[in-house]
């Protein structure tokens, strides 16, 4: 490069540069869930539904990361599977969250520290805001189908130092599996304070075939990205 700033890690991957804004924490909060019901179906697991409200409402290119305690899980919701449509499902009645935004969309830093700017004077990174970092990820292949009410796949399990889980797109666990008379969630689960995995859980069930028309399994993966920053 002729000028600017790039920092690489030991795998020759870019960590910070002056052309791409890092995702940094813009705000935090806690959401309260509502106990879920689904007409004609019974809850196989106790579940709480969440919609993004207040400071959790996203704009532009923001991402929201939820903090999961040991044993908690989170499932993105593609379409209404409760009587009140929700964005996420969890076993936890409250979820702490952090909204991350590209650094150049936030206010410029002031006071002490270090900052990296691009040629237009936009801040790409600075030492005063919390940085979003990737710790690990996991993929659950499409061909894998659950055979029990809760199936954990050790191949998808990995260590982390605690933190949060990304939502959206291919990044989060999602409700995406259905077989006759049951709804399955493709979830991200913190199995302990240091171990996470992607897995399936049976959320709702009903023995009456008239209640549900099975849909095919379309999503190939659930991928988890963790950050150690929250």
């Amino acid at each position, binding site marked *: 490069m002729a000028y600017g700033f790039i*920092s*690489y*890690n*030991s*795998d020759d*991957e*870019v*960590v*910070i*540069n002056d052309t*791409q*804004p*890092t*995702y940094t924490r813009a705000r935090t909060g806690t959401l309260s869930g509502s106990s879920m019901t689904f007409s004609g179906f019974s809850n196989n697991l106790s579940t709480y539904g969440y919609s993004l409200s207040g400071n959790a409402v*996203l704009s*532009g*290119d923001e*991402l929201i990361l939820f903090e999961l305690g040991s044993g908690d899980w989170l499932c993105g919701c*593609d*379409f*209404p599977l409760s009587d009140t*449509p929700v964005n996420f499902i969890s076993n936890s009645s409250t979820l702490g969250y952090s909204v*991350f935004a*590209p650094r150049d969309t936030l206010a410029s830093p002031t006071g002490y520290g270090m900052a990296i700017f691009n040629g237009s004077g936009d801040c790409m990174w600075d*030492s005063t805001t*919390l*940085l*979003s*970092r*990737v*710790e690990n990820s996991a993929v659950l292949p499409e061909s894998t189908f659950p055979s029990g009410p809760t199936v954990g796949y050790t191949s998808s399990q990995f260590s982390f*130092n605690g933190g949060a889980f*990304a939502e*959206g*797109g*291919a*990044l989060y666990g*999602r409700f995406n599996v259905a077989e006759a008379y049951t709804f399955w969630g493709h979830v991200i689960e913190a199995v302990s304070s240091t171990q996470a995995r992607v897995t399936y859980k049976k959320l709702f069930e009903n023995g009456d075939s008239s209640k549900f028309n099975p*849909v095919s399994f*379309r*999503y190939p993966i659930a*991928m988890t*990205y963790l*950050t*150690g*920053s*929250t």
Partner: protein
Amino acid sequence: MSYGFELLTTEGYVDVTGMRTVRFFGSYDKTGSSGTQTLSGFDSNKGTIFIRIKDGKRVPIFDYNNSTKVFSWDNTGASDSSNYSSNFRIILLENA
């Protein structure tokens, strides 16, 4: 550390040796039940395609060809095509 660059995190000082950050690469707003979008310069081996749904429906049925850099989606072939999003934002993240 003997040399290099450290960042202060919630886990204390972390050097950049094994660190991977999440960086914004670009974004596109798309509508319609099918279409294409060229993601110029985006390498899916170095990042992730993140899709934000705006109409409360399912993630569209999409594919990305990392060689041609063409992102395509087509919900029209699904028997329940109306359940798939036709108003979404593609957000590209890079972490390598």
